[in-house]
């Protein structure tokens, strides 16, 4: 009888040697004359145990990890094909506490299914959301999304249902669904994981969005840094098209939905929705003025729903299980679950999908197990390069859009980057300005010029004496205020947040070289 072994093809797992492990298993199985079928699944997101190999047994999947090619012979000797005992044996995958305590809704299938197999997707409740949506009126689909409380997971947290309703109500001969897969924030990888591990759920979500607002064409704008996701998406789109889930007649409904992947070209700003639309139109990715909103005049001037990968990939489960099911997770105005991405200097990094309301401390100390270096946590940046640095004293803040706004931070796309006590916060503040200068689209002055001046002012603060520092700190705060109030989009408007939070919470790090030299 053929034994099934799962070895992830997720880019992060590959970066740790998953391909070599798969090859070693294949070779060893051939050597021992064993019939082994290797499935290349996505990752479960337990990155500290990757490459994590799983074996199908009668009691469920048993995990082994982290596996290196040199471990493979030992695994065969320990009869891992039947769940044999080995130092790398992690027990039943579903019972690993790190995974078991999560609430995986959007990521229900990631790491479990074969991302290239539509049959596998269907066998794991795939396309049930679309089946439900096909029986509903467009306005009822939009209502379900509104009722679920789903907010844009890209970072801005705008209610998805309202965006969809605006687009539905706009009359036009052509409408578009655009998926923002330009996941540029440092510390985030949930979009990549879904696209590589469960691409059909994104395709299904976009198809439902198309039905809901009357759009017949969709684009996935994917960052060039994700070649593995590109391959996974293109294979999945082809499979869906071949089986009638995409095309002129979606599932025999008479409704059309065409989907295409478009590659970005390495500009961070193109994650901003209007700049992304410019880029899709073949132009420089410069931010547009709003209004008009993209939902009224978006891609090629037509009404366009533009949502992040996770937002769209969450739609199928809402349609399948109903809006109340999803809404019952979460706290306050932040409903449902958030796939958090735990990264940086942390012992057990990975993807943690939990209902809103988990505190940063529970995340970092509970799931993360503290820092990788073993030193104390000093600062945590949540929400990417434009997110505030949160000091260790505020770790008890619950992860919720409003609670974060209250402490001057933002949840953003759910990326959490942990720093230990060796971090130099003045250098981090300088980097935030430098990054803004490199990635500014150049359209508005506060962002284009302000960021460069910001770098210079921080350099002067760090190099100067106390009087110099005080003078320049006033300039820096004033500059930040101009950028926050005067920038056209979130890049210039939020780049000051990491800078100001570093100034406020880690003031000592800005002491000039001359000050530090004093006895």
């Amino acid at each position, binding site marked *: 009888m053929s034994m099934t072994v799962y070895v992830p093809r997720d880019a992060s797992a590959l*970066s740790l040697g998953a391909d070599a492990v798969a090859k070693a298993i294949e070779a060893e199985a051939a050597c021992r004359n064993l019939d082994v079928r290797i499935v290349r699944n996505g990752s479960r997101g337990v990155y500290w145990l990757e490459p994590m190999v799983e074996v199908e047994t009668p009691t469920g999947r048993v995990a082994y990890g982290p596996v290196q090619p040199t471990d493979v012979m030992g695994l065969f000797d320990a009869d891992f094909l039947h769940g044999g005992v080995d130092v790398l044996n992690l027990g039943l995958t579903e019972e690993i506490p790190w995974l078991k305590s999560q609430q995986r809704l959007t990521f229900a299938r990631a790491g479990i299914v074969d991302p290239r197999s539509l049959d596998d997707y269907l066998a794991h409740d795939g396309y049930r959301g679309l089946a439900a949506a096909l029986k509903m009126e467009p306005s009822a689909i939009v209502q379900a999304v509104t009722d679920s409380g789903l907010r844009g997971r890209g970072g801005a947290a705008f209610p998805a249902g309202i965006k969809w309703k605006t687009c539905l109500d706009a009359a036009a001969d052509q409408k578009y669904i655009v998926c923002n897969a330009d996941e*540029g924030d*440092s510390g985030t*990888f949930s979009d990549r994981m879904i696209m590589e591990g469960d691409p059909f759920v994104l395709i299904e979500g976009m198809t439902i969005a198309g039905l809901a607002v009357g759009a017949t064409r969709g684009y996935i704008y994917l960052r060039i840094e994700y070649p593995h996701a590109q391959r996974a998406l293109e294979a999945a789109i082809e499979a869906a098209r071949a089986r009638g889930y995409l095309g002129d007649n979606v599932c025999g409904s008479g409704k059309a939905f065409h989907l295409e992947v478009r590659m970005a070209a390495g500009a961070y700003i193109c994650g901003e929705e209007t700049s992304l639309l410019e880029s899709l139109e073949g132009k420089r990715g410069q931010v547009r003025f709003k209004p008009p909103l993209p939902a009224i005049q978006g891609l090629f001037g037509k009404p366009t729903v533009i949502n992040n990968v996770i937002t769209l990939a969450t739609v199928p489960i809402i349609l399948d299980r109903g809006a109340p099911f999803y809404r019952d997770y979460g706290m306050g105005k932040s409903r449902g679950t958030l796939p958090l991405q735990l990264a940086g200097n942390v012992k057990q990094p990975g993807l943690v999908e939990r209902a809103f309301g988990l505190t940063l401390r529970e995340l970092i100390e509970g799931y993360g197990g503290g820092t990788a270096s073993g030193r104390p946590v000093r600062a945590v940046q949540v929400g990417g390069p434009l997110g505030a640095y949160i000091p260790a004293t505020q770790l008890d803040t619950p992860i919720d859009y409003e609670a974060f706004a209250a402490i001057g931070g933002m949840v953003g796309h759910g990326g959490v980057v942990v720093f230990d006590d060796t971090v130099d916060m003045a250098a981090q503040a300088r980097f935030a300005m430098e990054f803004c200068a490199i990635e500014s689209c150049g359209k508005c002055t506060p962002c284009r010029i302000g960021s460069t001046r910001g770098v210079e002012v921080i350099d002067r603060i760090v190099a100067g004496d106390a009087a110099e520092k005080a003078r320049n700190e006033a300039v820096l705060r004033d500059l930040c205020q101009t950028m926050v109030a005067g920038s056209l989009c979130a890049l210039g408007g939020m780049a000051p947040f990491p800078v100001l939070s570093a100034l406020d919470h880690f003031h000592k790090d800005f002491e000039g070289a001359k000050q530090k030299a004093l006895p």
Partner: protein
Amino acid sequence: MKPAKTIASLPPIDDAVRAAVLDVTVRLKDQPGALLPVLHGVQNALGYVPEEAIPLIAREMNLSRADVHGVVSFYHFFRMHPAGKRTIYLCRAESCQSMGAAKLEQHIKQRLGVDFHETTTDGAWTLEPVYCLGNCACSPAMMVDDELKGRVTPESFDAWLLETK
């Protein structure tokens, strides 16, 4: 009757470049918003978007040269000069910083003898900065062409470089 535009009206262009550009534009130019896919196609075929290709791309796409130049120069990924045989994209973003990316950056620059955006004298490697590869759970990260690497240390980089040579 208006005379048909001829290739003669364009500045001189290498035959191989012309063939590569036309091969891409014929396939892609009629789709909506085709310029990025076209530029990706040209860069795929030639390794970069040569200056001399821009007038031809502009003509084929019915755009001005300034439009095309503006787009090529806006995006970090498009390059107007050839790269080395392989390109190392080294992540400089926060998650990698928290795990020692700055030290790694210094080491790699010293080891290869190049700064960012430069190519080694033997033409083997080009070093480019990148801001996040989505491998933040395995920081620090780098990508070599399209091969992702995680938890890179100065030592593992050296070992890998020796192995690859």
